[in-house]
């Protein structure tokens, strides 16, 4: 383990061989899983070094996912706030409606190389579950998705999509019955079926190599955005904003820019009812370091080290942890972390829908709400890039209920 120190030569070298980003990360899993995790690490590093793997991934990203996703100048929102030029990276236009597919595709190709025939995954909002079920269908693998009972109730359309895609959706009734518990159950299932099964973790968390592997697959977002902004404005953006639950869309956007000192980065956590109320999902702002789900990272926990329940209107952000690389970037001071409440996110959701004609998912609505807080005070030539990482079709029932509409 390295200790936290002054600015490193690069922010992009991690993790180390044992999977640590400074203090964070690692491989805190049961012995039964350890050989599997080592096998995944080996298979992934071989794939990464194999040009045919990258070519295959690029092919599917282009023709199946629809990449590159556009960089869109959000002129109405820019006018509305009267400050910075606001751009959206439109990952909500991807096949399946969110950034999640970038990672699922990559991991499914790794699973295929390993000869695995069965895929399991956890899901919160259902976006990762749908993306996983999609790639499983495409590559003819059987698929089981673990999903908390509460999330099943608030994300019915995605549950049905997963079933249509041929996946089995297993309701998880333990604990808080949300994403955290779905991840526990998926890990248990993996321990119990080690031979044929590959676990596609949906975010930049979990035991090494997952945080690095998922980041690498999601970095296509930031790589494209860099080129697109260069082409469009002749320079790099000034500020990047992204919503953070586990943090995969944010890490995908941020990572290619980490060594650009002039680029400011802001991760927006889910503040739920307000961080001061204790009912939130802001792990960095309202948590402290601990060990869960295979990695050391900032977690919501009580004084005894018991994990506490996260609360957010967004099922995709409703998780008491965050990827370990974010924890490290926070301690380094490289990325700023802020929080946005449920109400602020809902307001941003409606504003974007009416002004831009784009229904954003509740997850990026958090990022949008923060954009709204800062854009007006920034100069007109300031380039503010937000990751619009998912579309909101899945959320219309939850939003209608919250706004008092009966649909």
């Amino acid at each position: 383990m390295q200790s936290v120190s002054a600015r490193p030569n690069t922010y992009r070298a991690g993790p180390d061989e044992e999977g640590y980003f400074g203090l964070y990360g690692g491989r805190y899993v049961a012995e039964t899983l350890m050989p599997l995790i080592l096998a995944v690490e080996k298979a992934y590093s071989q794939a990464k070094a194999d040009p045919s793997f990258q070519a295959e991934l690029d092919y599917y990203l282009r023709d199946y996912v629809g990449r590159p996703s556009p960089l869109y100048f959000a002129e109405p929102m820019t006018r509305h706030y009267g400050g910075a030029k606001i751009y959206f990276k439109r990952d909500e236009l991807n096949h399946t409606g969110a950034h999640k597919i970038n990672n699922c595709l990559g991991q499914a190709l790794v699973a295929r190389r390993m000869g695995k025939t069965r895929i399991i995954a956890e899901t919160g909002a259902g976006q990762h579950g749908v993306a996983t079920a999609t790639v499983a269908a495409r590559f003819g693998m059987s698929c089981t998705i673990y999903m908390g009972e509460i999330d099943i109730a608030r994300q019915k359309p995605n549950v049905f999509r997963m079933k249509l895609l041929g996946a089995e959706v297993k309701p998880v009734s333990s604990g808080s019955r949300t994403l955290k518990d779905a991840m526990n159950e998926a890990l248990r299932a993996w321990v119990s079926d080690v031979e044929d099964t590959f676990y596609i973790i949906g975010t930049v968390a979990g035991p090494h190599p997952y945080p690095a592997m998922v980041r690498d697959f999601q970095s296509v977002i930031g790589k494209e955005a860099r080129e697109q902004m260069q082409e469009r404005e002749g320079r790099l953006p000034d500020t990047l904003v992204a919503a953070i639950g586990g943090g995969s869309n944010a890490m995908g956007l941020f990572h290619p820019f980490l060594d650009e000192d002039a680029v400011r980065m802001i991760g927006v956590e889910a503040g739920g009812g307000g961080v001061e109320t204790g009912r939130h999902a802001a792990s960095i702002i309202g948590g402290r370091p601990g060990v869960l789900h295979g990695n050391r990272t900032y977690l919501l926990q009580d004084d005894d080290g018991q994990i506490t329940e996260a609360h957010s209107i967004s099922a995709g952000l409703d998780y008491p942890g965050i990827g370990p690389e974010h924890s490290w970037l926070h301690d380094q001071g490289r990325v700023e972390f802020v929080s946005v409440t449920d109400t602020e996110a809902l307001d941003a959701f409606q504003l974007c829908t009416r002004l831009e004609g784009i229904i954003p998912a509740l997850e990026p609505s958090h990022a949008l709400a923060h954009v709204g807080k800062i854009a007006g005070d920034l100069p007109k030539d300031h380039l503010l890039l937000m990751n619009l990482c998912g579309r909101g079709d899945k959320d219309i029932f939850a939003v209608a209920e919250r706004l008092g509409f009966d649909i």
Partner: protein
Amino acid sequence: MSRIARRFAKLSAEGRAGLVTFITAGDPDLSVSAEILAGLPKAGADLIELGMPFSDPMADGPSIEAAGHRALKAGTTLRRVLAMAAGFRKGDTETPLILMGYFNPIYSYGVERFAVDAVSAGVDGVIVVDLPPEVDAELRVPAVVAGLEVIRLATPTTDSVRLPRVLDGAGGFLYYVAIAGVTGTKRAAIGDIAAAVARLKASTALPIAVGFGIRDPESAAAVARYADASVVGSAIVDRIAHGLDETGKPGPALIGDVLSFVASLAAGVRGARVQAAQ
């Protein structure tokens, strides 16, 4: 010689395997749990694993997960688990006591402080399910300094390439998890267990305790013919759950029922090799 080593030496001198019993500290509440704990040696437990409850027990099945939630609801904290251990040790100076659980509560408590406090509470060893050899130095080093043995786990997926890594630094005894799975679910075939124990014995002088999937006196006895100890957890915890009334309160027969079940397991284990020899 440590208390764990002394106990295995005694078992070996008696020509029999031991019974290791698991309960979660604070299940169903702190006082009933302390009474069960105090009664275990007399009921025939040779070593005791005391679970430190955790909100997210990823390697456990529904029984032990529910036990942990009952214990947490009853106000169990790591500090109270250590107090319970100290209370047990006042009445029993010989039965090894091993804490078992997950890393985060220990990390939150402070690893060095935990090791020191556990030893002064009379705890002999610790098993931390989510600390594989690759990452356990942060606990193992302060534990060894304090005199707390860190017990490692081997599983059906621990192949011959990996086994030396598991054995290097292992203390107390080696805990063989008989199935690839979570606690209280599948059962392993006895032939597979015998083969695994033989394989492990060829690589280490540590005693081998076998757990996961041992649910009754017969299966405890079957394992005791090959291993140095049989570990029973979920089946005991199920007895505790069974003794609760519909509001979750312990019924009058609970403690007696749990301890007589343990006594039946102990009889199975004690008779195993005699029976096998006949």
